[in-house]
């Protein structure tokens, strides 16, 4: 959550130790962030090799993640437009993109930082055209964006032209994801419906039996299922082709804000927030998709940008005073 960072920073500033519920979570490194750089939110690449930070100066900063050697700043990428509103990697980690608060999108080759595309949604940058979510197809040829309060759109990167306006009954979309093979696009829409499209934006299936909004969705690594989480405080699995509900996992105490299913095998990690406020972090949980109860990773720490699995460990990140903290959970 955008303002969740404030909570994490406050925890750090007060010198409070995070109260982790399990002993399996260990800090594996800190990335020093100079005082003049204000990090807004983070995203770990699907292969766990790098970390991209959306910064207040409208730049992306990409660090290597600590492994055998310490982290280092790999590159700084320029993003035109107002403040960065969303980040996304493609499923294979080949592409990274950012959207902004005035309708612009920038896409880069993740491993080199080479600019791949710049799009202006609607043809002209407009104040207030906040793009709340983006998704990049694995081949980098398509980008889906979610303008605030209006239906999501599918864009062609090579021609910089819009291919389709995707349907909603009302409102916009909270989350978008391409299937790992790039043949399908899923949207979690504010009208509570999950919609499945083909790569050209043709509607193929809907799941409209959820009464509350899903805030996050992610295809499973095999692309067969779609994992949903949101205000109903539970994980729902739907068929990745038909949209039919396959399974709902046990309901928890907090609304689910983000999900990470990529390369995590049969496990999904969720971050959450309390009913009282979206600023109050709830539990971070690891869910086995077979339907058993989830395992708590942390009761109240606000992770952001985590979820990638590397060397059998789940990588998660938090903000601290002057640093990004990288955690690993087994």
């Amino acid at each position: 959550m955008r303002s969740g960072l404030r909570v994490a920073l406050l925890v750090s500033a007060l010198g409070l130790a995070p109260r982790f519920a399990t002993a399996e979570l260990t800090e594996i490194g800190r990335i020093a962030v100079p005082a003049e750089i204000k990090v807004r939110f983070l995203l770990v690449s699907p292969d766990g090799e790098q970390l991209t930070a959306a910064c207040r100066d409208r730049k992306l900063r990409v660090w290597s993640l600590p492994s055998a050697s310490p982290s280092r700043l790999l590159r700084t990428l320029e993003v035109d437009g107002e403040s960065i509103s969303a980040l996304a990697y493609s499923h294979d980690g080949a592409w990274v993109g950012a959207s902004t608060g005035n309708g612009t999108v920038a896409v880069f080759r993740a491993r080199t930082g080479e600019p791949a595309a710049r799009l202006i949604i609607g043809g002209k940058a407009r104040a207030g055209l906040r793009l709340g979510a983006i998704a990049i197809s694995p081949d980098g040829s398509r980008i889906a964006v979610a303008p605030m309060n209006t239906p999501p759109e599918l864009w062609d990167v090579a021609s910089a032209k819009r291919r389709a306006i995707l349907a909603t009954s009302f409102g916009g979309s909270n989350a978008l994801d391409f299937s790992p093979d790039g043949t399908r696009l899923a949207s979690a829409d504010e009208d509570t419906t999950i919609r499945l499209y083909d790569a050209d934006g043709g509607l193929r299936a809907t799941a409209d039996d959820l009464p509350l909004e899903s805030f996050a969705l992610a295809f499973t690594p095999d692309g067969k299922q779609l994992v949903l989480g949101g205000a109903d405080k539970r994980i729902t699995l739907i068929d990745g082709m038909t949209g039919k509900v396959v399974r709902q996992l046990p309901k928890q105490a907090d609304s689910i804000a983000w999900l990470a299913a990529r390369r995590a095998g049969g496990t999904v990690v969720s971050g959450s927030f309390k009913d009282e406020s979206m600023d109050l972090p709830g539990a971070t949980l690891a869910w086995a998709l077979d339907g058993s109860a989830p395992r708590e990773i942390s009761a109240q720490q606000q992770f952001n940008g985590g979820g990638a699995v590397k060397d059998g460990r789940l990588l998660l990140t938090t903000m601290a005073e002057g640093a990004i903290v990288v955690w690993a959970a087994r």
Partner: protein
Amino acid sequence: MPSARLSRRELLEKSIAAGVASVAAGLTPAAIAAAWDEAAARPRTPENALGPFYKKHAPDTRTMRIAGDPGMPLAVSGGVFSTRGEALPEATVEVWHTDNRGRYDIDGYRYRARFKPAAGGSYAFDSIMPGHYPDRVCQHVHYLVTAPGHRPLVTQLYFATDPVFEGDPDKNFGRDPLIVSRELVRPVMLVGDPGDVHAVVTLDLVLERL
């Protein structure tokens, strides 16, 4: 107000055919109907964000307040119209808001309702004054209004008495960055006895044709 089931043009044509209206030479019924529509046009109600806690299948009721509910009783009313000024009794109005402590009922349907306007397009509901949701600056009531042949309207109602405005909503409505239009901040009339004060607010809902 003409019948909602008859368009202005149909009404005019019917009146001419029945001899109860006549048109001067050089004027066509279509031109007159267009001028009539223009004169009656109403601006679309400003849109506002849907918010994160919309819930489908709200109960069909106009009474969300239960006796003993904490919070000042609130009565909201208005009309549902098209931008041509026609009443839309076939619309469906959904409203939802927090309790007086600022919490949405996510597990159930407290302070959530859906209903149809009356034949003339008027609507009314009873509830309580919502509290301040911690992530929002101002008290608010969410609306989703749908009607056949019209663009859905997603908006929010705010209260001029909200302490955030410090008595001057004209000057201070921008303190909530989500309030996109001063028009959505409505005057509040306090009525009743000193021991039983109700807040009364009006908001018309104007939908754009598809």
